[in-house]
């Protein structure tokens, strides 16, 4: 079943004397169960708009989104979002942040701590349950955000540049962590990134988008995350000739878009 996006367009109406903006035009995309779809593109290509549509924060101007046969009408617990930053609640400690979704759903404290603790452990945050989140490093905060998204057992995990604010080393470790979690939890993931290398390494399907109007221009099937999960090291995967060749091809596409825009 999975998530189906059919002929979806988004037009932001004219405002303050600016003409209407066509943020997304005729998007068709299928995210199957257990698929890891990565969206990549120059800024303004509409990848965040697409994520907001799937999350239900935004309604399409035309077209339709369906998740497991049901129409997407607004935000819901079957889709969880991991944000780049600013999304944790600093007045709650780690365990209460992770359990926040369950609290919203009215689950008793004992039950939600039990579930939350499972994901705290999965994300390697054991021992930090009572720590205030504002004391944690950026990498750990992001792991809290991922644990929180997983607690409500969503069908689709939406990740809006979740690693964009991390330093390079932490980022590579977090990529491996997310892949392992994806492999263990069998979720489908829609992942936005600016990094071509990250996109190629993590996705099973790469969607390259192009701005004005935002649209999908290329789709690639990717073998690299499977190679990593089958035991190759991340460095090995990223240094392989086919990885580098595809990376250069994708970069060319994106730079061509940037120049066309400039």
């Amino acid at each position: 079943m999975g998530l189906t996006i059919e002929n979806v367009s988004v037009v932001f109406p004219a405002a303050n004397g600016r003409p209407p903006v066509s943020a997304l035009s005729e998007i068709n995309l299928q995210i199957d169960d257990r698929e890891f779809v990565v969206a990549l593109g120059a800024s303004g290509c509409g990848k965040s708009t697409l994520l907001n549509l799937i999350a239900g924060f935004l309604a399409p101007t035309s077209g339709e989104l369906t998740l497991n046969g049901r129409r997407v009408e607004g935000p819901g617990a079957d889709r969880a979002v991991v944000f780049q930053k600013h999304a944790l609640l600093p007045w709650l400690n780690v365990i209460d942040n992770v359990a926040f979704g369950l609290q919203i759903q009215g689950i008793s404290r004992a039950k939600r701590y039990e579930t939350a603790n499972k994901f705290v452990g999965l994300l390697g945050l054991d021992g930090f349950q009572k720590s205030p989140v504002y004391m944690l490093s950026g990498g750990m905060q992001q792991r809290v955000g991922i644990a929180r998204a997983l607690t409500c057992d969503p069908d689709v995990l939406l990740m809006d540049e979740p690693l964009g604010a991390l330093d390079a080393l932490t980022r590579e470790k977090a990529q491996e962590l997310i892949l392992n979690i994806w492999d263990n939890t069998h979720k489908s993931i829609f992942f936005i990134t600016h990094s071509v290398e990250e996109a190629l390494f993590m996705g099973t399907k790469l969607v390259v988008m192009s701005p004005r109007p935002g649209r999908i221009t290329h789709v690639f099937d990717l073998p690299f995350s499977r190679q990593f999960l089958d035991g190759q090291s991340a460095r090995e995967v990223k240094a392989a000739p086919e990885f580098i060749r595809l990376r250069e091809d994708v970069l060319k596409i994106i730079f061509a878009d940037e120049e066309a825009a400039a």
Partner: protein
Amino acid sequence: MTDKTAADAHVEPRAEPQRAPRPSPGLIARMSRARPTKPGEIYGVPGHGNTLWLSAFSIGLFFFVWWGVTAIGWVKPLFIPPPMAIVTKFISIWNTGFTGTPFLEHLSISTFRVFSAFILACVIGLPLGLAMGMSPLMRGLFDPPIEFYRPIPPLAYLPLMIIWFGIGETSKILLIFLSVFAPIVLGARAGVKSAAIEQIHAAYSFGASRWQVMRYVIMPSAMPEILTAMRVGIGFGWTTLVAAEMVAATKGLGYMVLSASQFLQTPVVIMGIFVIAIIAFAFDLLMRFVERRVVPWKGRM
């Protein structure tokens, strides 16, 4: 080897200017230059550093100069009585009261007036401010009256308060209430904007209702602004106290200051000012403590 000499020859002229003696900077340049404070904090945020000792010095200097000018006799005691006269006055009023009322009763009636006005302003102002932040309807209705009366000095509408509500407690507490109310409403209203859109979206994505978003995201994130507004608000309350006790009061610190001034009892005036300042400052310290306990995360995420 030839390569090496060539490289040396390249380096030599570039090193030359560094050896030239630097012109010594002038006094003003030296004073305005960024200065290392601690190792690792060189060229840090301006305004960094502990001010405790300087503050203690400033207070000490104030009392020393005060004592000095009165001891030498530059200023008549009518204008500035010596510090010891204030202390003696305080002790005598503490023991025998002022205009027949014990000192503690003056103190407690004023504290009662300020705090009941403050609590009333919080009970009405905080929900109203939050509602104004979250609803255009409420904002549209209540913004004009609040913005209209907010800049008016309480003394200007004091006569109206008395005409409408008489000379009893009601008009006094209402006057203080009005001066506390506006900053508290505006603070709570601004606090609503503190939540990041990501926090709000996160709650909605878990299926939160509008009410749950308010309860679990908007209200907690507004807490720092609300506490600041309460601090500012009670400050306005103390400021208005003397005005409130100007008419038909027979008790209170404001009354004490005003009636003493009519009899040129300068020591009582100064003492009353100090008592008000000390209570207000003590409460401010308490609020800062509460702030550290309730919103330790303020400004850190």
